[in-house]
């Protein structure tokens, strides 16, 4: 199939960008979206141009690096799928596709479709860990975890930190990410000791990084490639309110 792409091109974070139009000819159904971009880039390179920069690593939906907004939807039209796992059979011959980077002040564009997601790392550093002595691995079955809690913790732990939730949110809020990174610890016994302080520290860092405020639209859950539920946000809110009302330091 032949497609027309409108791609956001931006030299550096301080440069002002614009959309450039490219033809993608001879695209096959079984290519992934990134394969299709590779194809376009080969032609751009052959013609002596600067290839479209986009981030990618695993290309199997687990590293979280490949995010881009495709026709107005973070990671494109296919539900619970990262851009790298999106296949071209989701499009048809003659389609026009708009491709944009994540848009959030906390995610500055580095080049073209690549954004800096270090703000996520700082949210995790603020509290998304448990304090334990490292050393030899403890016995896996020493602490019993009820099955429903283990499942909920695992579902939250599926978050790959891609940032689609921020990209889709009309408030550019990162509450779904923050909530997932708090919940995979707050459902298990090891995460209880620091639970309330963690919620407070992570939310305060979230705010300081310049993410917006959640208004419970649910756009994040809709685009999340890992199907993280907005219920985790409610849980994080509860922990934060508890922390505040019991006087636990909010930083």
């Amino acid at each position, binding site marked *: 199939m032949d497609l027309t792409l*409108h791609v*956001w091109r931006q030299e550096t974070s301080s440069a002002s960008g614009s*959309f450039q139009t490219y033809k993608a000819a001879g695209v096959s159904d079984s290519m992934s979206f990134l394969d299709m971009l590779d194809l376009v880039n080969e032609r751009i390179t052959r013609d002596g141009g600067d290839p479209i920069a986009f981030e990618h690593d695993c290309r199997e939906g687990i590293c979280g690096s490949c995010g881009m*907004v495709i*026709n*107005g*939807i973070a990671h494109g039209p296919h539900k619970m799928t990262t851009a790298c796992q999106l296949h071209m059979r989701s499009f048809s011959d003659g389609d026009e596709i*708009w491709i*944009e980077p994540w*848009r*959030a*002040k*906390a995610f500055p564009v580095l080049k073209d479709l690549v954004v800096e997601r270090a703000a996520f790392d700082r949210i995790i550093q603020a509290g998304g860990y448990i304090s334990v002595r490292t050393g030899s691995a403890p016995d896996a079955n020493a602490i019993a975890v009820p099955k429903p809690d283990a499942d909920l913790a695992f579902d939250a732990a599926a978050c790959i930190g891609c940032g689609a939730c921020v990209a*889709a949110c*009309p*408030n*550019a*809020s990162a509450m779904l990410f923050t909530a997932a990174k708090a919940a995979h610890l707050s459902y298990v016994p090891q995460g209880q000791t620091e639970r309330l302080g963690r919620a*407070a520290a992570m*939310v*305060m860092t*979230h*705010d300081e990084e*310049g*993410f*917006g*405020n*959640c*208004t*419970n*639209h*649910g*756009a994040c859950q*809709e*685009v999340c490639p890992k199907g993280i539920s*907005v*219920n985790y*946000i*409610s*849980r*994080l*809110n*509860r*922990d*934060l*309110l508890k922390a*505040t*009302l019991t*006087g636990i330091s*909010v930083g």
Partner: protein
Amino acid sequence: MRQALTLYRSSVGKKALMAVSGILLAGFVLAHMLGNLKMFQGPEAMDGYAVFLKELGYPVLPEYGVLWIARIALLAAVGIHALAAFQLWQKSRAARGAAYRKEDSQVFSYASRTMRWGGVIILLFVVYHILHFTTGTVHSDFEYASVYRNVVIGFQSVPVSLFYLVAVGALALHLYHGLWSVFSTLGVQNPKVTRIRRPLAAGLSILLFVGYAAVPVGVMAGILTLP
């Protein structure tokens, strides 16, 4: 007080204060709607109800005592609610930065997208409403303490009635999302409760709309007339 200030510092805390003030306001609009329906009982009932409110708490409190306590509490709730809404709005707008060229917003409900402008409309309406039926400043023929009469004459103007209908529509829409949203904001997790939050919010907003619309529609339809 210190805890309230700490709470106000985080985005989640501001939102929780919005939720609590929102619930208080929602309780008020429900009671107010039920009170309005006294119109259908006739002039004596309606005017008597107004006197009852004025004398509530008397002689323990002075006349108008409870009324003024309620007015101050409501004013404070509106103030906190609107201030937090405004500050969070600013923050969220700054957080997006550059806008998308193409946005597929099909996943948001109309109600959730109109919370902010809808809230502004409600606020402007409340100011107008007080000038209309409480102080009489913008009423064409206002007579102090003749509540039934003032309401009927007020709604005999079709543009005024239509404006009231639009405003209570905006209120219903606001609460359709708001009363659903409060459960997340306040971290309610119990599945027995969260299962009913959509029907609860939808039911209450429809009830409020119908209850509030009944009076202007009743006047325009000629069911409520001057004695």
